[in-house]
């Protein structure tokens, strides 16, 4: 009981430290990281999740439980040529058990249930995992390939706290407009046909079935209703939030189906039930492989996107296998394989030389900082506005979730 209360206090303290780091820019963030170092020397209280694994990485425990986005841990069962789990098992002796999840909320819930060693978490899950005390800091010195990760992915707001890294960046991508090239002409370059009431594709639109999709509406409003003053689609005050919900309500009659299971999205595009809507590159690739006439593009209004991080569970039983996996999954060759299969930009700068399609990194803008300017990585909305506004309360994620379930139920 007593220790629990102490932990709570520690959480609050580190939350304050993080907020200070977020508000104050570089100068105060360096002081916050100094504080964290002091904390590591004295007690582990400054950062949630306790201390990172000290190492060295020894022999594997014989197995590893992996929680991953679909397509991130392939063992050849989707496509015999797509397999980086079996070579890992052979090299390390760690037998890999994979479970995939469809939404970040599902990932958070599964992690809270325990029993997993590593997870590929998007930015809208990472902080919830860190402050929920379900993951531990990561000792990047034990991950040799960390040094080759693109610098603009390291130590971001969603994968580190107070200068302490909580995971290894894996890759990034944008949520795209996918469309059936036969039915949708001219080819779309905007989200408008998926949101506007006069869309010619009424009844054939799809959308992602998760509260985080509210941010997609916010991105569209940023371009079409600048008077709302949305700067960050994850920092919406009540008025902006209501506008986004109104847009989603307007979208609802256009929708044929919402999807959170990616195989359902593939099926809907293949069968023609869905002709246009939000999608991932991997869905496009799978539908195309099955002969569907589909394409996926980034909208001119910008897009939501993801930057994923491999994290280690606080109570990981197979810590050595976990660190072996962290290093394996971002090693240039494997990182390139994952990126090509899933359709995202790799995080390892050396991956670009390993892709089978030599223009892959250009296509996915791996090193193109300008491309990512209007891609808003998934993040967890909090009552304190993430865009730094003061004097106004933002709508926290729990209310996003209830608003989404009310929209879906209405």
């Amino acid at each position, binding site marked *: 009981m007593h220790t629990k209360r102490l932990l709570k206090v520690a959480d609050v303290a580190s939350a304050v430290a993080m907020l200070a780091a977020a508000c104050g820019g570089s100068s105060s963030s360096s002081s916050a990281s100094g504080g964290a170092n002091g904390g590591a020397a004295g007690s582990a209280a400054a950062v949630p999740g306790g201390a990172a694994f000290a190492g060295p990485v020894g022999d594997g425990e014989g197995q590893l439980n992996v929680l991953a986005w679909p397509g991130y841990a392939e063992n050849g069962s989707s496509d015999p040529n797509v397999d980086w789990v079996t070579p890992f098992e052979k090299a390390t002796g760690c037998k890999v058990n994979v479970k995939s999840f469809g*939404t970040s*909320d*599902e990932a*958070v*819930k599964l992690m*809270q249930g325990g029993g997993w060693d590593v997870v590929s978490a998007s930015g809208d899950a990472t*902080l*919830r995992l860190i*402050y*929920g005390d379900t993951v531990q800091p990561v000792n990047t010195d034990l991950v040799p390939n960390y040094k080759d990760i693109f610098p603009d992915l390291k130590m971001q707001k969603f994968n580190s706290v107070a200068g302490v890294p909580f995971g290894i960046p894996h890759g990034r991508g944008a949520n795209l407009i996918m469309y059936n090239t036969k039915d949708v002409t001219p080819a779309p370059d905007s989200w408008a046909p998926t949101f506007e009431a006069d869309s010619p594709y009424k009844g054939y639109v799809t959308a992602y*079935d998760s*509260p985080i999709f509210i941010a997609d509406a916010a991105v569209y409003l940023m371009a079409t209703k600048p008077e709302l003053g949305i700067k960050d689609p994850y920092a919406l005050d009540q008025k902006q939030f209501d506008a986004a919900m109104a847009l989603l309500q307007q979208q*609802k009659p256009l*929708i*044929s*189906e*919402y999807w959170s299971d990616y195989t*359902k999205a593939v*099926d809907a595009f293949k*069968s*023609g*039930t869905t002709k246009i809507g939000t999608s991932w590159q991997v869905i496009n690739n799978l539908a195309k492989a099955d002969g569907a006439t589909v394409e996926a593009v980034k909208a001119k209004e910008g897009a939501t996107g993801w930057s994923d991080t491999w994290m280690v569970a606080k109570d990981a039983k197979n810590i050595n296998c976990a660190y072996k996996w962290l290093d394996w999954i971002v090693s240039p060759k494997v990182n390139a394989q994952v990126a090509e299969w899933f359709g995202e930009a790799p995080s390892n700068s050396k991956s670009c030389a390993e892709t089978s399609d030599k223009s892959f990194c250009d296509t996915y803008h791996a090193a193109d900082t300008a491309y990512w300017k209007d891609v808003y990585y998934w993040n*967890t909305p*909090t*009552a304190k506005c993430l865009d730094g506004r003061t004097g106004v309360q933002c709508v*926290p*994620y*729990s209310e996003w*979730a*209830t608003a*989404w*379930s*009310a*929209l*879906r*139920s*209405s």
Partner: protein
Amino acid sequence: MRIAGLLAAPMAWLVVVYLGALLALFITAFWTVDDFTGQLVRTFTLKNFQEVFSNPAYLTTVLRTLGIALSVTVVCLVLALPLAMFMARIAKPSWRPLMVALVLTPLWASYLVKVYAWRAMLQPESGVIAWFLKPLGLSGPGYGTVGIIITLTYLWLPYMILPIYAGLTRLPNSMLDASADLGASGGRTFRSIVVPMIFPSVVAGSIFTFSLSLGDYITAQIVGGTTTMLGNVVQTTYVTNLPFAAAVATIPVVIVLLYLTAVRRSGALENL
């Protein structure tokens, strides 16, 4: 003494696992969650129930779910009555085991396989149903409430047929003969003899079809299009807000309890 020993294990199972889980569910409904991490905060609050009952969207979902469960029950009854009648009273007795086996065959296939099969059949343009209806100038039901009702009816129909079939086989021939001897027409015999005699069986079947439909959410997800049922609300909110999901989940429990009470009042349970 020995009987008590034998019963101890199942009773413990019933009380601890079954009622215990229900109780835990009910208690959770009065807690709340941390806004940020989504983890449980164990402080008493009524706000989950307030949210459920004050937001018209959830009330609509409750009514829609009830409507779906009732429709499924009625359609199952309409289909099962003549089928069970044929199996029990008209077909040759030697055929009965075969026909019962045929009714049971769909239960051997996986639930998901059957629902995905219906997803393929219900497909708005290329599905089998749409293809059949096209020459008649009609379009199929597509994905939505009607699709859900059709699929659930298919899934739960055996649970309605079997009790009614059992009830009909137990119907004594002497009663039907007596009714005929006294000059009653077929319709009159059906109304005055058959219906009262098999009423408990119908109730038993309806408990299955009604409560199974009430709690379903996977069918709604696969063939429901944008339509949601109570189970979907639970499924989408339990991750971010477990207490709210628990509050929603108590609604079908209460509805089924009310239904069972009403059934008990009618005396149908005693006759089973």
